[in-house]
């Protein structure tokens, strides 16, 4: 917990906040612009609004966004003698890895909350939709945040290993590309265990797009939670093992 608080001090004046704010907003706005350009209205109200914002966001920009955030939060550790200082202190390797992945996951969760807020704001202000988005979306937002954990841990691990800012982001791009292939192929098993596909699949929950039925079952929710938990633990262990063996 103390290590996590230390991470949040490091986030002061960080570009990460700009990414967290801009990425979801731009996604929702571009969905709205597309709708307006086609001279349409969101026929199905909030459902259409959400579908047009979240599904594309979950296919590519979300994974790449997490990749950029991971490179941003690790960038300063690769400078000067920071690695030496971090590794020659009493803070355990486990806490170092968990604190970084934790702060990244909280930033990512913030991005999901902003996505939902942007959907609500644009829906009201641009399209004058009645009422507020159904409360279901709150649950889906929370599920997306959970589904992002494995990618956050994975990208955090890659940005820890690679000094380069761009390499881990390129991996995120490739991962997201592969995920699209898996999602289009509608392979139910693989989609749940490939972290980049897992976030794509979760953003589709309840939308009826790709392999989604349009209805969210308890099995869906439990699968997302189970797969996310398992992948997160495995990837955390992998990162800790790597750092524990690493020589500086």
């Amino acid at each position, binding site marked *: 917990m103390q290590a996590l608080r230390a991470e949040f001090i*490091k986030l002061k004046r960080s570009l990460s906040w700009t990414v967290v704010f801009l990425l979801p907003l731009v996604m929702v706005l571009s969905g709205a612009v597309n709708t307006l350009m086609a001279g349409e209205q969101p026929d199905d109200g909030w459902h259409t609004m959400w579908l047009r914002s979240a599904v594309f966001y979950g296919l590519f920009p979300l994974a790449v966004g997490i990749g950029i955030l991971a490179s941003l939060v690790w960038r300063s550790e690769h400078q000067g*003698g920071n690695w030496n200082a971090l590794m*020659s202190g*009493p803070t355990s390797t486990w806490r170092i890895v968990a604190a970084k992945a934790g702060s990244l996951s909280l930033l990512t969760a913030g991005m999901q909350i902003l996505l939902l807020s942007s959907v609500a704001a644009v829906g009201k202000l641009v399209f004058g939709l009645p009422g507020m988005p159904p409360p279901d979306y709150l649950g889906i937002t929370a599920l997306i945040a959970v589904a992002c954990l494995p990618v956050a841990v994975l990208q955090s691990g890659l940005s820890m290993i690679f000094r380069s800012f761009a390499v881990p982001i390129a991996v995120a791009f490739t991962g997201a590309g592969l995920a699209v292939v898996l999602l289009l192929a509608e392979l139910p098993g693989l989609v749940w265990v490939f972290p980049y596909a897992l976030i794509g699949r979760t953003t589709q929950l309840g939308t009826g797009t790709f392999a989604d039925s349009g209805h969210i079952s308890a099995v869906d929710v439990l699968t997302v939670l189970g797969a996310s938990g398992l992948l997160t633990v495995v990837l955390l262990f992998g990162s800790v093992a790597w750092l524990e063996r690493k020589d500086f």
Partner: protein
Amino acid sequence: MSFVVSTEHLSKRYGDTAVVNDLNLRIPEGCVYGFLGPNGSGKSTTMKMLLSLIRPSSGTIEIFGEPMSRHSRRRLLGSIGSLIESPPGYGHLTGAENMRVVQRLLGLSDQQIALAVDTVRLGKQMNKKVRNYSLGMKQRLGIAMALARQPRLLILDEPTNGLDPAGIDEIRQLLRRLADGGVTVMVSSHLLGEIDKTANMLGILSGGQMLFQGSREALFTASLPDLILSTPDPRHTRSLLNSAADAHIDGSAVRVSGLDSTGAAHLIRHLVNAGDEIYEARRDEQSLEDVFMHLTGGGEL
């Protein structure tokens, strides 16, 4: 004698190259241990092995009497402050924010942080971003970070690198003060003059091997600097010395090599008795290179 740091046959090889070879370090408690050697002699690698930043190829390390390994390191590192290679610090944060990161991470009190900042006299610079610090200020912030945990052992790698003479002097005094307060300090340098006056124990490394380890006095005995005599007529002075003395004329002085304290006293008495006038008799300033020449008997650096 109790040693804060001791190593047995410590070695590090990369492929066929031995960067550190069969090192038996002995650092007594409460001393300032000057770790000397030219660049690339293996000083940083040795210090990194002591901190378990690098795993040794062979040999063992004991710190505070306990084996240092990947398994035990985090517990031991709580009592070891260090500054290795370039100083740490987050450029986008102020000095105060950097210290707060250390405080959170190590669970330290406000007083511990304030004390560390005071010790390196960085109080006035704490609200400035570290990106805008001079190298000397970054170096001092790094030392403050190392000191904040109030370590029993402080390991500093070339802490005077890039500092101006005033800064170097300040570090020297700081190390002296810390040692007086009971902290064991290990400090590396490639310049003898820089830590000669601060260190009371010296270890000299060359090509990964220990050439000398012991007190300053012992080093002085092992490698005697020349005695330089200023007299009105150096030629005459030279002629007064018997041919066995290893003496030659050096400008307006006579330089005598290989004399210990007793030998020097004899020689001066002899000259005075012979009626020669001696303006000045002093030991030559020794560079690390000179010491190496003596220790290696011909000087490969």
